[in-house]
């Protein structure tokens, strides 16, 4: 069986400190995806993190140019400042092929809780829009994540950029308690045996394939998934099926 890949974690653009051979445009990213045979990707623009969510979100739409293989992910800021979340927000998402939202509360200096996002997160739950939480420096902390899920247990959360040091002691309790928490496989596949144990304990439906490109090698998480000690059906679910299902349920 030929495994089809949907990358849940890639970005366009480079960091202000530079990243080795990153993709400056959506076209360059697609070229890199073709090279390793990745069919689709959920993408954001690094300017959303490093420079300005407001401007970066626009840059993402511009470079994606409606390409059907790419699914956009905008970056949120608190609704009250009206920098990102304004009237017709969901209609704008639909128009611009934005299927998921991410946020970086530490780097962008706000709190991740109901005081800030209460009504908005209720809307995300209703519309089944996934919230992507990067655990990279500047993203969410584990404490933030734990208290967020206590307040919004039905929020669909995809945790990406898991730490180089194994994170099972953090992730297993979340996977046990909240059924809408998903892990992106990129850095997870780096940890010997953790990926397989996660599948065994919580099922393949809780993982989505991701690469972490351009910081990480696409080939690393791909080779790992292809030869991991799980069934072929589970491999296909993780490689693309779960992500496609999640995005197909989004109501915009």
């Amino acid at each position, binding site marked *: 069986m030929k495994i089809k890949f949907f990358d849940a974690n890639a970005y366009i653009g480079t960091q202000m400190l530079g990243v080795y051979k990153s993709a400056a445009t959506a076209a360059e990213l697609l070229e890199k995806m073709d*090279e*390793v045979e990745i069919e689709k990707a959920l993408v954001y623009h690094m300017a959303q993190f490093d420079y300005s969510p407001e401007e970066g979100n626009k840059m993402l739409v511009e470079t994606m140019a409606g390409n059907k293989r790419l699914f956009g992910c905008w970056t949120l800021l608190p609704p009250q400042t009206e920098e990102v979340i304004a009237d017709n927000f969901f209609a704008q998402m639909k128009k611009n092929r934005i299927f998921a939202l991410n946020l970086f509360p530490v780097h962008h200096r706000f709190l991740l809780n109901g005081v800030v996002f209460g009504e908005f997160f209720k809307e995300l739950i209703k519309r089944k829009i996934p919230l992507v939480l990067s655990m990279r420096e500047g993203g969410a902390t584990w404490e933030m994540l734990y208290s967020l899920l206590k307040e919004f247990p039905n929020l669909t959360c995809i945790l990406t950029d898991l730490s180089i040091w*194994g994170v099972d002691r953090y992730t297993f309790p979340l996977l046990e308690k909240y059924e809408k928490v998903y892990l992106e496989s990129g850095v997870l*596949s780096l940890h*010997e045996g953790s990926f397989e144990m996660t599948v065994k304990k919580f099922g393949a439906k809780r993982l989505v394939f991701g690469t972490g490109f351009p910081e*990480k090698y696409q*080939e690393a998480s791909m*080779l790992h998934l292809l*030869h991991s*000690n799980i069934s072929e059906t589970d491999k296909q679910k993780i490689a693309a099926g779960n992500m496609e299902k999640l995005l197909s349920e989004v109501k915009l």
Partner: protein
Amino acid sequence: MRNMSQLAKDIFKYGRVKDCPVYDMHGHMGSHYGIHFPTKSAEKTVKSMQAANVQKLIFSHHGSLMMRDGNSLSLKEARKFPGLLKVYCTINPNFPEVTEKDLAAFDEARDVYVGIKLLAAYHKKPITDDGYKKAWEFANKRKLFALVHTWGDNNMNGPEQIDEVARKYPGCKIFMGHSCHGEWDKAVLLANKYKNVYLELTAVPDERGPMEKFIEKAGSKKILFGTDMPWFSYHNYIGAVLGAVRKEEDLRNIFYLNAKKLLGEIGQL
């Protein structure tokens, strides 16, 4: 998979290729204070090795690194699979009496011992400290391997300290574990300057760029494959190397040829 050698394509297809074994020159074993490791025992480790055709793992048990007098844990695990597993004798400079005992017993364990392991940044004494002197002299005289945890911007085991020990102990085959992580250019300079100094890949493949630099500036003959097993998984790391290194000859040097040559030189092949 465009732009890949036939060998790389075969590894992608089959997960392991018979005529391209992998030698892992940097591993550990057992449980750990900060991380849950599903693969803790020698038995499980060997299973993971076989899935990726890893034919040799040289390791130091977490118990030898994180507590006093733990080298016997490494020996016990390695002797379950003596053909596959070899051991670095951990030297902790905070316990000179243990070092003395371990070095005195080293020859009795030559069935599995291949060298010494230094983790200076954790043990808080630079690798040039007197607490390591006996071990360096011992390894130098016997032309053993010395796997040194190295990191950039660090005065315990950074490039400057490697420069000093490489000069002082030319008999040792010094493996820069993590290749002076972050100070990649300095690591390359050291690998080029000293015949006895090698770049080791653990914690290098999780970032694009440095491996390409190593190939270009130091050449694949100075690069050793390592994973920190059970920290990092074989197929993820092998995949990353395939993403960075295009030529089959370079892949073979990194995966096994360099390691086999070095093991041959110390009569441990």
